[in-house]
Structure formats: structure tokens, C-alpha cells
């Protein structure tokens, strides 16, 4: 069996693949956080809860109404997006002019409430969700086995990430978002309905989280607390990429997943801390993050 650095190629590429998958989730989640932070200037601690809602809805909609995976991929983000718009309109908007610590506490509290209520209903043991029929099995690439569903997760996440990047950087709507991020008061004076833009942006950001949740449902254990576990890592990713940077969130998300995967091969004990180590190093060298603008 061929080896690289004394490690079998199959093991190495297997961990790389797992790393890419995790990276795809980090990218989707940190992208949503970056979009929200850019315009609303709030640190959305509910993000993990919305990710979990996406996954949980996928399972619950299937178990109760028989909603299939493809429908869920569309329905769950939509429902969660609407919930997000309502949260922005009825809660976040009321404290928009207060210190940002208020919105941080509010979203954190909201996440605890959502997780607590759902834990009460569904418990903390993982719920299972079958991989959709078309994605069962996989392909042997010679050096490794690639399950179809994992390949789909990476492709879907990349398409959504770069679609989002394109919309923000290259379209008219995106120019509203970029300009609103810089100076929302002037945008308002130009006749642009900034409050509406803010609601929709928050809704869109949490939609991305829910989309990641649906993708996660067949491969991760679905529990009401699954979002809390991943959120801290995602925050580290956002900090490394640079607060509010769209491309930074995407690239850093994928890269951190891969770094985590590689660490599992060479020094498994450090796998869960390596991202935070990178964060510390990046903050020491580039305090605004890899893609952030220096103030």
C-alpha cells in the first residue's frame, strides 16, 4: 500500500475528505454569520440554533408528513428564514441602536430557549435520517472510496457559497448590501428601504445556516444541541477569515476543515484544538483576520 509521510494514502485522503466536508459546513455557517455581521453589525449567537432547526425540521417533516429530502432542502431553509425575519423584526430591531452586547445576549438567550424547548420535546439522543436513495453507495477512486452523499454535500455547499459571493459582489442587490454595510443612513437618504434590507439579510443569513442543517441531517447525529457544538468553531473561523468578509468566510471555512482533518492523521490529540491555535496565531500576526480590512 502506498504511503505519504508514513501514512497510508487511503487514510490520508479519507481524512482530507472528512475535513473538506466539515469545511463545507464551516464555510456555509461562517458565510451566514459574515453576511449578518456585515449589515447588522451583530454577532449572531443564534446561528447554531438555526442550523440545528434546519436539520431537525428535515427529520421531523419526514417523520410526520413524509416530506422528502429534496422538499426539505427547499422548505426547511424557507421556514427558518421566515422565523429569522420575524426574530429580526420583533426582537433585534428593538435593540438595534443599543450597544452590540445586547444583541449578542439576545441571540445567545434565544438559542438557549430554542435548544431548551426542543430538548424537552425530542431529547438529546441523536435522531437518524436516512441518506436519500440516489446518494446511497459511492465510487472507488482507486486511492479512496468516495460516498456519493459526501460528494454532493461538498458540491452543494460550494455552489451555494459561491452563488452567495456572486450575488453580493456582482449584482445590484449585492451593491445595496455592500453599501448598506458601509453607510446605511445614507442609503436610507437615497430612498432605499434599509429596515427591509436588514430583515431580509438576517433571514437570508439564517437560511444559509438551515441549508447547512439539511445537508447535515443524513450524516451527522441530529439533536437539539448539535448547533451549540459547532458554533464555537464557526466563530473561530469567522475571526480567522476576518469579521464580515464574505470570501474570507468561505475560504477559511474550507481551509480549517482540511487542517482539522490533517491534524487527525498526524496528531489526533490536537484535532479539536488546532483551529483555535490557528486563530491565536492569525490574531497575533493579522488582528483583522486573513481577509479582514485593517481599521
Amino acid at each position, binding site marked *: 500500500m502506498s504511503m505519504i509521510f508514513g501514512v497510508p494514502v487511503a487514510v490520508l485522503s479519507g481524512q482530507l475528505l472528512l475535513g473538506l466536508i466539515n469545511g463545507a459546513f464551516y464555510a456555509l455557517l461562517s458565510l451566514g454569520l459574515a453576511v449578518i455581521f456585515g449589515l447588522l453589525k451583530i454577532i449572531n449567537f443564534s446561528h447554531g440554533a438555526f442550523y440545528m432547526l434546519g436539520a431537525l425540521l428535515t427529520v421531523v417533516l419526514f417523520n410526520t408528513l413524509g416530506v422528502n429530502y429534496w422538499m426539505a432542502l427547499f422548505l426547511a431553509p424557507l421556514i427558518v428564514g421566515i422565523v429569522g425575519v420575524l426574530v429580526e423584526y420583533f426582537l433585534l430591531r428593538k435593540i438595534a441602536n443599543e450597544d452590540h452586547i445586547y444583541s449578542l445576549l439576545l441571540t445567545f438567550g434565544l438559542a438557549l430557549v430554542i435548544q431548551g424547548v426542543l430538548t424537552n420535546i425530542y431529547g438529546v439522543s441523536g435522531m437518524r435520517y436516512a441518506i436519500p436513495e440516489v446518494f446511497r453507495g459511492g465510487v472507488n477512486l482507486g486511492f479512496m472510496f468516495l460516498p456519493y452523499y459526501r460528494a454532493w454535500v461538498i458540491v452543494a455547499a460550494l455552489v451555494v457559497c459561491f452563488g452567495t459571493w456572486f450575488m453580493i459582489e456582482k449584482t*445590484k442587490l449585492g*451593491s*445595496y448590501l*455592500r*453599501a448598506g*454595510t*458601509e*453607510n446605511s*443612513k*445614507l*442609503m*436610507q*437618504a*437615497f*430612498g*432605499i*428601504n*434599509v*429596515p427591509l434590507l436588514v430583515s431580509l439579510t438576517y433571514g437570508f443569513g439564517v437560511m444559509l445556516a438551515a441549508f447547512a442543517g439539511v445537508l447535515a441531517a443524513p450524516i451527522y447525529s441530529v439533536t437539539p444541541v448539535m448547533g451549540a457544538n459547532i458554533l464555537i468553531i464557526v466563530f473561530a473561523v469567522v475571526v480567522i477569515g476576518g469579521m464580515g468578509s464574505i470570501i474570507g468566510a468561505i475560504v477559511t471555512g474550507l481551509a480549517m476543515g482540511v487542517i482539522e482533518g490533517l491534524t487527525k492523521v498526524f496528531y489526533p490529540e490536537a484535532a479539536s484544538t488546532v483551529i483555535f491555535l490557528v486563530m491565536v496565531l492569525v490574531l497575533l500576526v493579522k488582528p483583522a483576520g486573513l481577509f479582514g480590512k485593517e481599521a
Partner: protein
Amino acid sequence: MTDAIKPNYEQLKLTDLHAFYGESHILHGIDLLVRRGELVTLLGRNGAGRSTTLKAIMNMVGRRTGSIMINGRETIGIPAHHIARLGVGYCPEERGIFASLNVEENLLLPPTVRSDGMALDEIYEMFPNLYERRFSQGTRLSGGEQQMLAMARILRTGANLLLLDEITEGLAPVIVQKLAEVLIKLKEKGLTIILVEQNFRFAAPLADRHYLMEHGQIVEEIDASELSAKQELLNTYLGV
């Protein structure tokens, strides 16, 4: 004859306008009237409340009381993003060019508010520099070019009431001259303009009337024809 083309049509009327930033009371009862096609200046020292008057019209200050009629509509209670749609174009003192947008994106950003705005090629004809640099990042332009961009941006929207805050500040004389030419053209087109200006020599030949502000109030209204007679008063208030 519709209201909009009647001579002496009151395009903007402020009555007893007070404005507040938090606890501080900035404007103390402004009364002001601007008719269609007029160019009116707000003169005064820094901190006299001239910029705040423009911001209050745009609903960009904390709290306002009194009355602001734009094209015959009371706007004191309406949200900020509805004001531009009444045909108002605002050019802020800091110019407000967006760094994350290129020149053309900056130009196309404000939504059209009336149908007879200038077309993009007309704008590029008026400001050839902007055409040459249309794909540059907005804030890479020189100060003068940024000012042109900030003006051009609201001309495209079709706004017929322009609120211009310190547009000549910090600019080279040749640019100031160009801005004067632009303002004369806009006046010929029949646009109504309120100019907050520090540079009295720039404003004096262009304006029909001047409002002199001090401590958040209007202390004197001077017609262009009375300028020489009231020169001494002006000097006292402007400290020149």
C-alpha cells in the same frame, strides 16, 4: 397648469422646525421657504446648524418637531427612505462615496425617484473624468472627482430638489470653478437647490437668496440684490 410648474410653487417649506440629537437641542425653530427653481444658501459658522437643517429635512437626525413640507406634502412623520422618493437628492458633507463599490456602481446606487433624471451618458458627458475611471474603486478617486461623483449620483435619480452640503470644501480652485458651472447648468434646467456653503465667494454669484444661521436659528434672510447693502452684517456673522 399643474402645481409643479406654477411659478412661485413652494417646493420646500420649513415651519418652526426643531431638531434634537439625543438630549441636545440643535435646531431652534427654523422657518424657511424655497420656491421651484431657486438656489438658496445656508450661511453661517461651523456649528450654526446648517448641515443639521439638511439632515433634519432628510430625517437623519434623532428627533424632529415642527413642519417640513416637500412639494406640498408634510414629511415630519414619514420614514427616511420615503423622503428621497418625493424628489429630493442629498449630497452629504463627507460625500458618502462607498469604498466597496466602483465608480459606476456608486453612480447607479441611488434608485430613480422621478422619471426625468439625467441619463448615464449625459452624466459622463458632464463629468468626463468619471467615465474614464468608472471601474475604479469609489474612494480611489481624488477629492474633486469624489465630489463630482457625489453630485452626479443624485442627478441621475431625477431629484428636483437638491440639498448640497459643503460641496467645495477642501477642493482646488479649478474644481470649485467646475462645480459652479455645473450648478449654473442645473439652475438652467429648473432644479431647486439648497446649498450649505462656507465659501461665500463661490455661493454669492450663484444664489438667489441667502439664509444666515446662528445657534440653530435663522437670523437673517438676504436677497441677492441686498448683498452689498448687508455686507457688514454678513461679515459680523460669518467672521470674515
